[in-house]
């Protein structure tokens, strides 16, 4: 669990204007959120793999994907409808 990153994701999802503000002034927003700039960059760019590797909550990653209009299966590399079956 990465509480700081999850808190950032929740702010991006719920706090009106925070996503836009983060895009305009990423360094200031990262400092405000108390996370490395790389976390913020991964979030606003929809880098789901990086967010996963940094310990972001999977459900918040899914919600971010929805907010950014990203197909999570496609972004994670599994072609939609073609996931492996263990």
């Amino acid at each position: 669990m990465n509480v700081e990153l999850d808190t950032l994701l929740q702010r991006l999802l719920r706090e009106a204007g925070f996503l836009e503000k983060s895009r305009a002034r990423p360094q200031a927003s990262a400092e405000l959120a108390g996370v490395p700039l790389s976390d913020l960059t991964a979030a606003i760019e929809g880098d789901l793999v990086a967010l996963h590797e940094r310990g972001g909550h999977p459900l918040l990653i899914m919600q971010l994907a929805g907010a950014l209009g990203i197909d999570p299966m496609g972004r994670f590399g599994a072609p939609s409808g073609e996931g492996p079956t263990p």
Partner: protein
Amino acid sequence: MGVVVAAYGVSHTAMIIRKFRPEDAVHRTVHEAFAKLRAEVASLSPDVIVVVSSEHLNSFRFDCFPQMCVGIGNTCTGLGDGGVAAAKIPLASDFAGMLLEEGVGAGFDLAFSVDPQLDHAFMTPLTLLRPEMDLPVVPVWQNASTEPLPPLWRAAQLGRLLAAVIAQRPKDERVLLVGAGGLSHWVGTPQMGAINVHFDTTFLNAVRGGDLETIVAMKSDDIRDEAGNGAPEIRNWLTVMAAHPGRGEVLTYEPMREWATGIAVARLGSEGNP
């Protein structure tokens, strides 16, 4: 004494609704199974629908995150997430209040949420089983997503609590139980889209046999490792199975990779079902 008129176990991904393509035969199979239960619900006319499902960080936040929670008050609000329509639904306040009071009185530390907000975990099954949204609902959340998770035996105990409350309800109150979630699926991870058919088959065989012990013996960590971080939602089925024991009947199972989930629709404790 209330009576359980039926008990169901169903998957709850919003993709069942959002990605439904009627021209696809497998999609139709899933929707036909739901349609069968929808007709059954209409004919059974339950007074209350108890839906046991999971939290997805939509109803609650990290400032206070319950392991188990019952919705109380007068109204539920469907959030409209995931492509499932928003809605207002009546909440069965008397039943919910009794579940909360009896549970806490029995040492069961239920949290509560007043006039709760429901995401697709509840709204997908309700939309598919009772689209009129006119029957009073009792939402019950179990944490299946955010570690640490309660052990599965606790989910079974919650089911027994439900049964005890139903036994104390007014004469002939008709209760429909729905356990929603699972089966195998990976959510928000690089494995998303994978399905473990072997795990799902083993689980559904336990459902068919009414085999609570096999499911209770499962460990959350093993379930997560074998069947994905969404698979611990099978605890919601377990709760309903414990509330209404007996052999189950699986209406359909489809490993739906494009919906990223092993999809199942089942009657639980079907010996007592119509």
